[in-house]
């Protein structure tokens, strides 16, 4: 199996979210970037498991700047064989998907894997867009993936349940919880990552389809109303009369 795993950076989950420049720009001050958890915990680790059981090669790809090489090294330390960075500061999901599909088209990957979404923009867009641009089938929100020959068997989340489906390679898969367990890189992996190949490719010109005009922070909650634990009738009355939710 020749597998391409798309990884994205995402702010560490404990990051304080703030905006600058008249609320038009994410304030990166003091923000630590990590590999987007869905990409790392599920897509990358399952790709490595497949390689370990049936052989093959795992390439990771990201669209980003030199600042993003830290997350690339992290993914290599976990076990990917090689990395590709498309040199650009990505503007929207369409831009990212066009860059990756254009790179992947001629490379003969059997599976292209993404996380189900990033934890910063939560769009769930890149996987589907790559699939369309490469004219490949797309299985989204997969929670299990097995391969035998050119046949992939997957489980995926559906509304209120799960579904087992089959698809032929090449295919694009977006990965959700259940696919694999998080792996912590060991010292050997971290050392090896330093010398694994990283190819940097210039970005193609792609027009932007979307942009963020501005951002806003949620309204702070007014202070909490405390209810006596022995008086649940009062809570129910408040939920009915005051909050009007039941």
């Amino acid at each position: 199996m020749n597998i391409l795993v798309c990884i994205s950076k995402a702010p560490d989950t404990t990051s304080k979210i703030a905006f600058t420049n008249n609320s038009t720009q994410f304030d990166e001050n003091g923000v630590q970037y990590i590999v987007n958890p869905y990409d790392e915990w599920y897509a990358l680790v399952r790709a490595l498991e497949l390689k370990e059981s049936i052989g093959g090669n795992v390439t990771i790809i990201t669209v980003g700047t030199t600042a993003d090489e830290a997350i690339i090294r992290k993914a290599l330390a976990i076990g990917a064989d090689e990395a590709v960075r498309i040199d650009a500061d990505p503007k929207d999901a369409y831009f990212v998907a066009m860059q990756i599909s254009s790179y992947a088209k001629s490379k003969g990957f059997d599976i292209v894997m993404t996380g189900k979404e990033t934890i910063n923009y939560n769009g769930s867009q890149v996987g589907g867009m790559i699939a369309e641009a490469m004219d490949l089938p797309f299985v989204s929100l997969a929670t299990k993936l097995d391969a035998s020959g050119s046949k992939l068997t997957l489980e995926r989340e559906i509304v209120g349940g799960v579904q087992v489906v089959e698809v032929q390679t090449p295919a694009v898969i977006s990965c959700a919880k259940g696919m694999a367990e998080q792996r912590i890189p060991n010292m050997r992996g971290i050392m090896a990552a330093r010398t694994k190949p990283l190819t940097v490719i210039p970005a193609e010109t792609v027009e932007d389809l979307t942009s963020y005009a501005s951002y806003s922070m949620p309204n702070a909650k007014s202070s909490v109303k405390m209810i006596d634990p022995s008086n649940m009738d009062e809570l129910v009355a408040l939920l009915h009369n005051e909050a009007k939710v039941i």
Partner: protein
Amino acid sequence: MVLVYINSTTGLSKAALETVTYGKKLSGDVTVITNGAASNEQLAQLGEYGASRVLVDRSVNGEDPQQLARLIAGVADQVSASTVIFSHDIYGKAVAPRLSVRMKAGLVAGAIAIPEADGSVKVNVFSGKAAGFVKVASSKQIISLLPNSIQPEKAGNACEVAEISGLAGESAITILETKKPEGNIPLPEAELVVSAGRGLKGPENWGMVEDLAEALGAATACSRPVADIGWRPHHEHVGQTGVAIRPNLYIAAGISGAIQHLAGVNGSKVIVVINTDSEAPFFKAADYGVVGDAFEVIPRLTEAVKRFKATQH
């Protein structure tokens, strides 16, 4: 002209009615495209929510996003749609990005409101820790609407339904099996949610959570560690790395309120927190708080809900 895609394989969901209502707010001329088994009489009801006509392709099962993208792009072309609307559910998440590439139309993923005066559309970003306003530069646009962001509104009468075929092509995905536990309310669509965390001590104690959910007609959810250690199924895990939800009411018992948990639930309209620790961070995000032992408070609340329901008709 607005085109709305709905999945009607299991009838007309609330999310479907929300998307048609959304379409109606953008245009006086709304075409609905759907697949699946809902009867023509059922589909005609979409007119009451603003649809001018409904097109249905019964040869498509709705499970292959590639097939759906061909179908929807074909119809969009025929009716000259400049805007296509989806629900930001499993179908919208799979198909809308494909359609965006196919139609070269900018995608607003996860809209939570109708467009602003300047045309930008509000979405949640950073897992609900903030909101962003997305502007589309292309002449065509696609909007996927986060479930429970607007309410369905009746705006007209039943409309015509026409069957179509021939646009979707073959499916590349073979369905081997569908496992659907009966009677569950799907979490992303639920208006009321009862959720519990590690404070419940073990899976054997979830009976009282389910009882409360049943008394309310609510869905159940849990914190991440609870799903990780296998006390509850993964699809119940809410938060930054689980499902993001925005129900009308979120009741959290025995959950500390870590930032990653809050990220997935702070879009809820009303939050009730039950925790033994009065210093639990969750109280800062709550509307109503109960400092107390979940093992006593939850059954008491269930009884109070039942008493209240008995007075309502």
